[in-house]
Structures are given as C-alpha cells and as structure tokens.
C-alpha cells in the first residue's frame, strides 16, 4: 500500500517538476525559437515558428520526466567499469596497461597501410590536437597556469614557417625547430608580465594576448597579407624528395613506384605522429626531472616552493616556454599541411578547444588528453555534415562532460618516482589544480 502511495507521490512530484521545467523552456524558447527573423526589404521581417517552440517545450517536459523517473532512479553505478578502466589508465605501468602504450603506438604506425584517405586525414587532425593538448598540458596540467591564449603560439609557429618558407625558401625541416624556438621566446615574452597574476586573471590576460596577436596578424597587411592570409606555403620534403606528380627529385621516381597523392598524406601522417611522440617523450622526461617536479609542486603550493628555494619566476617561464615550443611545432605543421593560413584559423575558439581537450582529458594526464582529443575532434568530424550544429554540440559536450567528470576523464596522477616496488597512482581528488 505505502509502496504504491510512494510511487504515486513520486510520479506527481516528477510531473510537477517536469511542468516547471517546461514552463522555463517556454520562456527560453518563446522568442528565439518561436520566432524567426528574416531579412526583408527596408529592414527585417519575421515569421512564427510554432512547431519549433512546441517541440522544444515538449522535449524538455518529457526529457525531464524521463530523467526523473527512469534515469535518476536508484543507484547510478554504471560507470564502475569505466572507473576501473580509467584507474588502470592512471597506473599505466601495471598489468595489461603496460602494453597498451606500445600497442597503440605500433597500431598508429601501421594505420596508413589499412586506413582510407578520410581516416588518415582525420587522424592527422586528431594528432595535431593531441600534440597541442600535450603542449598546453605542460602549462595548464603540470604547472597549473591557466592559459587561454595558447593559440597565439600556434599562430607564431604557423606564420613563422609560412613567411620563412614563402619569402626565403627555407625548408620545413629547417624552420620547424626555429618556429618552436620563436614560439618559446614569445611564450617567455608574454609570460613575463603575467607572472604575478593568479587564476582567472591570468586566464583573461592570456586570452587578451591571444586576441592581440590575432588582430595584429589581421591588420599588418605588409607582412601577413591581412585577412587574405598566406597561400602557396611549400610542402615538406622527404630528404629532399618532393611529393609531386611531375618535376625533378620526386618521391615516386626515386623509389620507382607509380605516383599517388596518398604518399604525401601518409608522409604528413608520419610527420605529425613523430612530432606528437617527441612531445610525449620530452614532456614525460621533463616530468621526472627536477624542473617537472617543480612545475607540479608549484601547482600544489607556490609559497611552499619559494620557501624551498625554488625560483618560481623561472619555473613558470620554462613552463610557458616549453608549452609554447610545442605549440610552435604544431603551428608549423599546420601551415605546411594546409598550404594556406589566415588569421581566421587562430581565433579564441581554437584556444578554447585545446584547453577543453586538456581539462576534459584530465589535467596532467597524457593518455587522458589523447582520449579527449579523439573524442572531441573525432566527434567533431562525425558531425561534419551538420556543420552548423557542430559547434552547438561541441559547446554542449563541454558542459556535459565537465558536469559529469569535473576532474576529467583520467583524473589520477602517476607519481614520478617510487621508493617501494608497488606503483599506484594518486587519486585525482588530492591533486590541486593551481592558483595561477
């Protein structure tokens, strides 16, 4: 008896809640969804869209009802398997996890032999974001410095190669390290004035710097060609061999194989794969060195760092510089892959996407960042057809994943050194995120 009463009460409460949600949805949807403005002669005209409105309100009503009555019922233990999975990722050197890294890397190397053009193309894009994510991870994940202007260094790298490549004919392989160093220098130049800032203030100033650089690129016609961008950026060569159908020193002639446009694509894939692995190797090494430990210590407690004699100014600058360096490498690669760049590719949204990958992946975790890049960028590609809904869903996904897993997908932290034999990761709840 009481059971049915309780059930009834719950149903009534759920109905009421759903009705309230629907009412709110009606207010929200009223003008923006229910009315569509259209350009007309002498200004604007509009028409009513009752269907959209009705669907939105009904959707919210039944969605809320569903959530309340079915989804949120009882215990939500479905993610148990997931937790097991991610915790094993956190302690990647244990058990089967030990083999995961090499298997994935070997798999990546074999990918071009089996995958279609589209898959390789998408993989290149994903790897670029993995590289950028790992680079930004140094700044945000390890050093705990919230950088919303990372795209600036990506832009510096891209324009460095675009300008040096088109004007002076320097090869990609020469410019690549130069671009990295140039971006690192910019990282320090921009990093220096903001060293004293903390948290959100740092975020907003780095955002401002990113925008300033973009606006300069947009308006400095003489050098950057403004919004028209730079085209005809030379492609990289394979030890001097070009990936062209005709001409001297071409790849297919040298190896005596028929020409295929796939060669260049596959070559690009290997370049970005190696660059990403380089980033992974260097940042992993650095994490186990004093400088990396100092980054993480700074994230945990900056004042304690200073009390231990650590020069936090230099430590922050190295983090900015290393992060920017990899951003520069990514930028150069982007320029050579596209063959064309314009300031439009370096908007704040790019910074937001890279930061989202780092935070959603789990700050400090390389595997998490890689997974987040695959999910976000891969998911992005899935919605390629519905281009205008793409960013809409992207924004929504950011909110949903964050609310679901505020610590990111892989939240544990692997210690850098052990006294004993057992290797266990530190729970994400104990790890701080940094003040600046």
């Amino acid at each position, binding site marked *: 008896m009481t059971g049915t009463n309780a059930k009834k009460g719950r149903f009534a409460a759920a109905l009421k809640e759903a009705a309230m949600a629907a009412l709110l949805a009606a207010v929200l949807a009223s003008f923006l969804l229910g009315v569509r403005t259209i350009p007309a002669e002498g200004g604007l005209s509009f028409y009513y869209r009752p269907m959209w409105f009705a669907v939105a309100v009904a959707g919210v009503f039944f969605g809320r009802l569903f959530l309340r009555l079915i989804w949120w019922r009882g215990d939500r233990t479905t993610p148990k398997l997931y937790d097991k999975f991610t915790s094993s990722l956190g302690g990647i050197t244990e058990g089967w996890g030990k083999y995961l890294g090499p298997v994935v890397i070997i798999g990546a190397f074999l990918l071009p032999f089996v995958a279609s053009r589209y898959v390789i193309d998408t993989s290149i894009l994903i790897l670029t974001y993995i590289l950028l994510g790992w680079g930004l991870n140094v700044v945000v994940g390890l050093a705990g410095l919230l950088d919303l202007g990372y795209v600036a260094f990506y832009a510096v790298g891209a324009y460095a190669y675009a300008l040096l490549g088109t004007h002076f004919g320097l090869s990609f392989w020469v410019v690549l390290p130069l671009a990295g160093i140039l971006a690192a220098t910019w990282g320090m130049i921009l990093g220096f004035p903001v060293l004293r800032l903390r948290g959100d203030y740092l975020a907003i100033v780095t955002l401002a710097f990113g925008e300033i650089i973009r606006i300069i690129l947009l308006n400095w016609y003489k050098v950057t060609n403004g919004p028209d961008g730079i085209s005809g950026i030379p492609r990289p060569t394979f030890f001097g061999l070009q990936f062209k159908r005709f001409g001297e020193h071409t790849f297919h002639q040298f190896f005596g194989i028929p020409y295929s446009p796939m060669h260049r694509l596959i070559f690009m894939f290997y370049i970005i794969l190696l660059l990403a692995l380089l980033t992974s190797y*260097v940042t992993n*090494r*650095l994490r186990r*060195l*004093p*400088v990396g*430990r*100092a980054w*993480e*210590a700074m994230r*945990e*407690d900056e*004042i*304690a*760092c*200073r*009390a*231990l*004699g*650590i*020069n*936090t100014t230099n430590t922050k600058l*190295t983090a900015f510089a290393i992060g920017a360096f990899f951003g520069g490498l990514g930028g150069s690669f982007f320029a050579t892959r596209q063959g064309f760049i314009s300031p439009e590719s370096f908007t704040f949204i790019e910074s937001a996407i890279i930061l989202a990958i780092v935070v959603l992946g789990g700050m400090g975790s390389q595997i998490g960042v890689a997974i987040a890049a695959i999910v976000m960028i891969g998911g992005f590609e899935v919605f390629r057809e519905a281009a205008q809904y793409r960013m809409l869903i992207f924004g929504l996904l950011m909110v949903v994943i964050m609310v679901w897993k505020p610590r990111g997908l892989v939240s544990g*932290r692997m*210690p*850098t*050194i*052990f*006294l*004993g034999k*057992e290797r*266990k990761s*530190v*729970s994400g709840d*104990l*790890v*701080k995120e940094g003040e600046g």
Partner: protein
Amino acid sequence: MSDIILQVDHMTMRFGGLVAIDDLSFAARRKEITALIGPNGAGKTTVFNCITGFYKPTEGMLTMTHADGETFLLERMDDFRIARDAKVARTFQNIRLFGGMTVLENLLVAQHNPLMLASKYSIGAILGIGGYRRHENKAVELARHWLDKTGLIARADDPAADLPYGDQRRLEIARAMCTRPELLCLDEPAAGLNPKESDDLNKLLMSIRDEEGLSILLIEHDMSVVMGISDHIVVIDYGKKISDGDPAFIRSDPKVIAAYLGVDEDEAGELAS
C-alpha cells in the same frame, strides 16, 4: 660555543597604519634552539615571514651568518634566495605540503636546486648526459635518511595529503631539512599534536640540534615543548620584545606572566613569587 647565526636589529614592520612589529631586536645562536613566544596576535608569524623573505620589513636589519663566516642581509633578499643561498628553511603554521605528490616527491622537490644543476638544467638529463641518475639516487638517499628519522619511511609512496595530521607536520620538517639548511624556522610545529606526538617532536628537534648541528628558531604555544627543549627564549607582545633569556629566567619574569595572564605587572610579580 655560542656564536650568533641570526641577528635581528631594530626590525619594524608596518601594514598601512598598523604596526605589527615595533623595533624588535634579538639574536639566535648557532646550534641552539631559540623559541619565539608570545600571546596570539603578538606578531610572531610576521617575524618569521620577515626572516624568510615573504614580507619585506619596513625598517631594520636581519643578518644571517653561516658557519664558514659568510654573511647575508636577509632584508635585501628574495624569499627563494633566502632559502637557497642563505640556507634558511621554514615550515608553515597551516601546513603547506604538496598534497597531490607523494612523500618522497615532496622531499625531492626540496632538493630542487642541487638536482637542477645535476640535470644540467634539464637539457643534459633529457639527452642522457651528465650522470643525472647518480645524483638523483643520492637525493633519494638523503630523503630516505630523513624519512627514517621522522618515521615516515613506510609511507614514502603515499600522497602527502593522505597522511594523518601529525605525520604531515613531521613531513614538513623533513622536507625543510632536505634543503640542507643552516637555520631551521618552525612555525608552531606542535600545534594540533597529541602528547605522544609532541614528545616525539621534542626528540626529533633535539636530535636535529645535537646530531646534525643545526640551529632552530621556533614559534610555539605548547609550553612543554618550549620549556623542555629551548636553550633561549624571546617573548614578544604587541610586536615588542618584552623578555629575552633562558627558560628559567622567562618562567619567573613578571612581564611574561603579565602578558600571558592579562594581569598587570605587580599582580604578576606576586603570582611568580
């Protein structure tokens, strides 16, 4: 042997209109435990923050003298230089450990500067030259030494934030010791400890003084700690020094009793006698 390691001369610290420290002078002697005591709000932690460079004193001179005779004027140095070059290590009243890092990592971060040199500023170590591994092993040995002394060796691979409160206090001392300081400044090391832990702490501090030959400056409220181990006590109230001497002298000083009990000096004199 009682040469002076830290000399504080006429130090004044003002925050806007508030005078937190007023013309304070005292000295801490080498290989001794000097305690700085006083009622709440007397300005003890402010003195510490001036010595370790987190605040710049408005006036005054702070002279640190190493065993080899080298002197440092602390009021002119940045906080991290005081720790690195003048070799003054400190702990904090509200513990500041690197909570998400393991106990061992905490102790290695404390050895950042020598390790940084050993890693050839990271470049050498990435390229695998310069024998960084050897230096790191030595650093781990030093860490192990202090983990043994503080009884934390079993927890070396646990995150610092997971340790119970008393262990965290000891870990902070171990971390400070790993910077190989000449002067150790402890800000209320016994706060929140139970009698047993407090007793262990006394032994630890005495062994740091006697076996490692270190000088210690500590702020403490727990009188059993202060009276039990201090060689020399400085009492301040409202930013001014009101007494200075050995524990026996302090115990019977009417001014001190007055400050602590909130009575005037005549009454305190009666109480003391």
